[in-house]
């Protein structure tokens, strides 16, 4: 009678896939460490890669790193004579937005160059 109950429990246990063993754990830990190294490399390269974006009229120039840190805002002297403060503000804002998009693009390009063969088990 108890054997019947034991058999029932064993059936239940069999439904849980026993996919995790020591080899799996070691491989998963190593995979995590490898991704950590990739993240560190990408972060280092992105932090040192400058992206420069100019406004359409060429009066404003934004320098941003690939990881999104704004490093410089350059405004041409002529902008102060030919643009109102409001116009200049809008131009700077638009250039900053473009710079952020460009930084993300640059990071993706760096990722492609560095880790073209990176695959995730799924």
């Amino acid at each position, binding site marked *: 009678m*108890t054997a019947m109950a034991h058999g029932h*429990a064993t059936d239940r246990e069999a439904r*849980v896939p026993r*996919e995790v063993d020591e080899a799996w*754990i070691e491989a998963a830990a190593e995979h995590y*460490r*490898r991704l950590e190294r990739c993240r560190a490399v*990408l972060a280092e390269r992105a932090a040192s890669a400058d992206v420069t974006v100019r406004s359409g009229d060429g009066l404003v120039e934004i320098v941003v790193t690939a990881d999104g840190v704004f490093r410089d805002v350059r405004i041409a002297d002529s902008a102060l004579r030919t643009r109102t403060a409001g116009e200049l503000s809008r131009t700077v804002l638009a250039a900053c937005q473009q710079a952020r998009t460009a930084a993300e693009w640059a*990071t993706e390009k760096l990722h492609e160059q560095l880790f073209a063969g990176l695959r995730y*088990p799924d």
Partner: protein
Amino acid sequence: MSRPGDGWRPAALPDDRLDAVAAELLDLLGLVDRALRRYGVVPEHEIVAGLREFAALPGAVAAGVVDTDPREPWHAAYELAGRRSAVLAAAGPLARDGDRLAWSGAGRAAYETCWGPLSGQVAEALPATLAATASYGAHLAQWYAALRAALVDFFLRYGTGPAAVGLRTAPIGAGGAGELAAGGTAARAAADLGAACFAALRPVLRAGAALRDDPPARPRHAGPAPSGHGGTAYEVDPG
């Protein structure tokens, strides 16, 4: 020998709330499993000990628990308890009639040779065996219920917490720099949730191992039994 009363029935099961949250729970723990596979396991995290102990990913373990149905062993225990009551009810008159003999001699001796073990079987061994099995079924049902309740407790505590929200909003499968950057956070969130799930189930599973290895019934020898009726009864404590 501790034995239940004649009218013993298994205690009612607690309310089950797992079915109500099972879909959300399995979805979350499915994400946990996927993140652990995809981003690896944080070394030195307590999830590592849990993975060694459970030998399965948290979502797979939870799916096994969701699959349990405490009502199955409970109904079986209830039915066996009813049959035990019926046997006990029949055993009384049978014993009175069987012992009330107006004859003696060699026929009486031959009769006693058969009747003694049979009356012991009907009055004691069979009810004890039925009680032991019913008790085991009742304990098993309560164990299933405790497992399910532990999973519900885990979900209520962590299902909408920071780790769960972080994991649900992570760009899992998106690829590129965004996924690489977010993968570390997702891996840690998955490890936190998986470890919490294991922690919730661990004490109940250990109790289940104890139930398996040392069921609430101990064999005792009931003496010779009539052919075909088995000879082992169990001391029971249905609790």
